[in-house]
């Protein structure tokens, strides 16, 4: 799989998911890393496919709260930490599925259940990175295909 193709698929997946279900206009603003001082909300899922791999998602806390509130159509003040984590997990699920659907159209892939990731993920230079500046925070997705 060509890296450029995977990067484009991930970027397109980010844009379509954020726009259609979270009503966020990502435009062409590619974001940067989540700032060091912040502890982002993190989710991770693995997938089986040809090839298999994993995706992690990190979202700045203020952005995670506002997108969760928009998704669930509730006030931010009424959100629990659990609800925010659930929405970030669902976001990871959708981004991964949308990216893989663009890349693995000829084979079956199966997504595992996303879960909250505690602690910073180990850096992996081979991971494909996609990010978005949400205005009040950064969203960063890392997609890694394992060699088979």
């Amino acid at each position: 799989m060509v890296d450029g193709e995977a990067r484009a698929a991930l970027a397109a997946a980010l844009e379509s998911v954020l726009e259609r279900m979270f009503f966020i206009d990502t435009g062409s603003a590619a974001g940067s890393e989540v700032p060091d001082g912040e502890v982002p909300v993190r989710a991770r899922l693995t997938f089986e496919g040809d090839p298999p791999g994993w995706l992690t998602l990190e979202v700045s806390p203020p952005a995670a709260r506002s997108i969760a509130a928009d998704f669930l159509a509730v006030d931010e003040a009424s959100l629990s930490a659990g609800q925010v984590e659930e929405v970030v997990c669902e976001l990871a699920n959708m981004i991964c599925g949308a990216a893989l659907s663009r890349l693995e159209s000829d084979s079956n892939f199966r997504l595992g259940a996303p879960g909250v990731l505690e602690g910073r993920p180990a850096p992996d230079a081979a991971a494909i990175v996609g990010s978005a500046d949400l205005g009040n925070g950064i969203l960063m997705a890392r997609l890694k295909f394992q060699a088979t």
Partner: protein
Amino acid sequence: MRAFVRRVIEVSGFELSSCFEAGHGGEALAILRREWVDLVLTDVNMPGMDGEEFLRRLEADELLRALPVVVVSTDATAQRMQKMLSLGARGYVTKPFSPESLRAELERTLGVPCG
């Protein structure tokens, strides 16, 4: 996601009298064998019994096979879509979807006159 889908159903103008939720196909079958429903929405990737097996079990059941099922899944491949429709699903919506597109698929599946 269930909360999002439920809200789409409600704001689309359907009067939602009951909504049952299940974490996987096995749990859903248990509910369907004791409760009347008008529509089933299911994902494909689920722990335990997945969406494909769930549809096979529905199709094998004389009473349950007539239930309208709409698949809501991140899998946008033509392969998966064809598979689920061939197993008896009446509709298929890929995530991400706009609320309006889910509404349209629900209306098409339930046969609501439009326009």
